[in-house]
């Protein structure tokens, strides 16, 4: 897990392997669910999708349902794992904070060239809001999907009102899920966010970038991160005079990565970001 070579210099870990696997399991199974869910509508034959090479199956509602079920097993299992695993460890970095709505507006304005964006914790305020929104959507999809699945196998004659609610919650939340997914994709197209993308593949982002845009996160992790030697080129230009104008707060909140309340006094050695940085900057570091 920890970087051992010089390839990782000037990088800081943003996601561990568990988080990366969670993300991609939910993303890929979710995408499969979207596609197979669409093919539960009678459109593949009508719109000649079944005539495309390798897509004949798309007109078979029962085969599509099997794929839908298979993807659901991954989607539901990992979603529930995600909630329990992080709640029990007190990971709260992705939960919305007070003022996130206002801050999100400022961030979006800054993307449009109006005003400066605020300093960030590990996640952007709109990321935290989007996470909460996606959590509600996924919860709705899972609950309604489980009701529909139970009906399909054990209770085709269950209350019509319940079936109707489950069906339409599933359909409406499907649309919301697709819109949220589109917004997620749009967010990584925005230039200032692009350096974050690598972390969902490799777990790491540039330390320069983190210092420039996520100083509150670095402060939470460890005071050693502040003023840490920087090597390599900056990946994102830092706005002029930003560090001086906006000093980091003295009293940082809980570390979202390691759950240490006062990271400066007791940096948690279990925090992978701290550990990685220590290893990268220690004199005996392998290169």
């Amino acid at each position, binding site marked *: 897990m920890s970087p051992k070579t010089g390839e990782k210099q000037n990088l800081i870990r943003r996601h561990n392997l*568990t988080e990366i696997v969670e993300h991609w399991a939910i993303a890929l199974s979710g995408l499969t669910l979207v596609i197979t869910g669409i093919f*539960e*509508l*009678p*459109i593949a034959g*009508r*719109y*000649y999708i079944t005539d495309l090479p390798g897509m004949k199956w798309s007109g078979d*509602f*029962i085969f599509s*349902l*099997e794929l839908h*079920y*298979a993807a*659901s*097993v991954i989607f*539901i*299992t*990992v*979603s*529930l*794992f*995600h*909630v*329990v*695993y*992080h*709640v*029990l*460890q007190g990971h709260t970095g992705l939960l919305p904070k007070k003022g996130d709505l206002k801050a999100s507006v400022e961030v979006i304005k800054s993307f449009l060239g109006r005003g400066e964006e605020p300093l960030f914790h590990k996640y952007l305020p709109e990321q935290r809001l989007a996470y909460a929104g996606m959590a509600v959507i996924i919860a709705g999809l*899972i609950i309604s*999907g*489980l009701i529909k*699945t*139970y*009906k*399909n*196998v054990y209770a*085709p*004659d269950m209350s*019509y009102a319940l*079936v*109707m609610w*489950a*069906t*339409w919650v599933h*359909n409406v939340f499907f649309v919301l899920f697709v819109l949220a997914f589109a917004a997620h994709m749009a967010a990584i197209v925005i230039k200032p966010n692009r350096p974050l993308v690598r972390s969902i593949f490799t777990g790491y982002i540039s330390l320069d970038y983190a210092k420039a845009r996520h100083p509150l996160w670095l402060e939470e992790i460890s005071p050693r991160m502040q003023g840490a030697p920087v090597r390599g080129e900056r990946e994102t230009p830092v706005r002029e005079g930003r560090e001086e104008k906006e000093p980091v707060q003295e009293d940082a909140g809980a570390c979202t990565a390691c759950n240490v309340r006062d990271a400066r006094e007791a940096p*948690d*050695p*279990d925090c992978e970001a701290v*550990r990685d940085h*220590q290893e990268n900057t220690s004199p*005996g570091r392998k290169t």
Partner: protein
Amino acid sequence: MNDGKKGGISRRALLKATLTAALSVGLGSSGHAHTGAGCAVATLIDISRCDGCPERETPACIQACRQKNLLHVPEPVDPLPKVFPRGKTEDFSGRKHLTDRLTPYNYLFIHKAEVEHGGKRWSLNIPRRCMHCDNPACATICPFAANHKHKTGAVVIDSDICFGGAKCRTVCPWNIPQRQSGVGIYLQIAPTLAGNGVMFKCDLCHDRLLEGKNPVCVDACPREALLSGPREIIRAEARKRADRMGGHLYGREENGGTATLYVSPVPLEKIDAAIEKGPGRPHMAPVQRRMAKTDTLANSVLLSPAIGLTAGILAAAGALKGRKNSSPEEERKP
């Protein structure tokens, strides 16, 4: 002959009395326990008794069904919306008179078969309509819940929310539902791009079942070739009749079981070979429930929350334990 007739009448009267009694005492703890209304109902169709009403222009069951249902099918818009991209519509509004097949205006027809069996020639008349399956894929996987199996056993399409995509017909082993283009809610949304009308089929007179009454076809039959009543009583009666005539059953196991049981004096494969099959004229071959192959995965889906919760608890406990046990020195091993 007279004795037999009297005996027959007497037996039928006895059966009716039994069914009525069973209905009157109720089948369970539902809110309709006193009348039996709303309880699971099945229908028995005794092929040996149906003669197709030769003396009538239209068989009595079909006549009754059409009288009850024909007015409920709205007139399609003219012209029918163009359906992108295939342009295929289905319009029976000019053929409402058809009674020899299933159409959006005709939910019951008599299938005729000439069969040689046991050294005898049988001229059979077989009332055909929706089987009202125990676990109907047409209803369970309707994307808009426009089709539903009710506690009465009736599988009912809600024509107010059906888009006429015909998925129900595709997954029905007998392709029962019939589409009328140019009617229904799709006209209000995007008639060219989505939907293509409304699907229509027999609803087993669900409204009457809720009142504790029989479907109109059952009440109309002059030969009592059709019976309806509490599911288990009808199933037992069907078995008894089949045993008595050395006959055969259809609908008991088909597609995982249905609420319609045909009792036939001749093997069903001979009937299936003899009847005219095609659109609106379903086969009578053995049918496996295709959705059965999805049940294992569906059960896995139902188990997945427990798996995810358990895995999450174990993984978090392991991580927390590892955090407690580890010291900074151990973590900073060179």
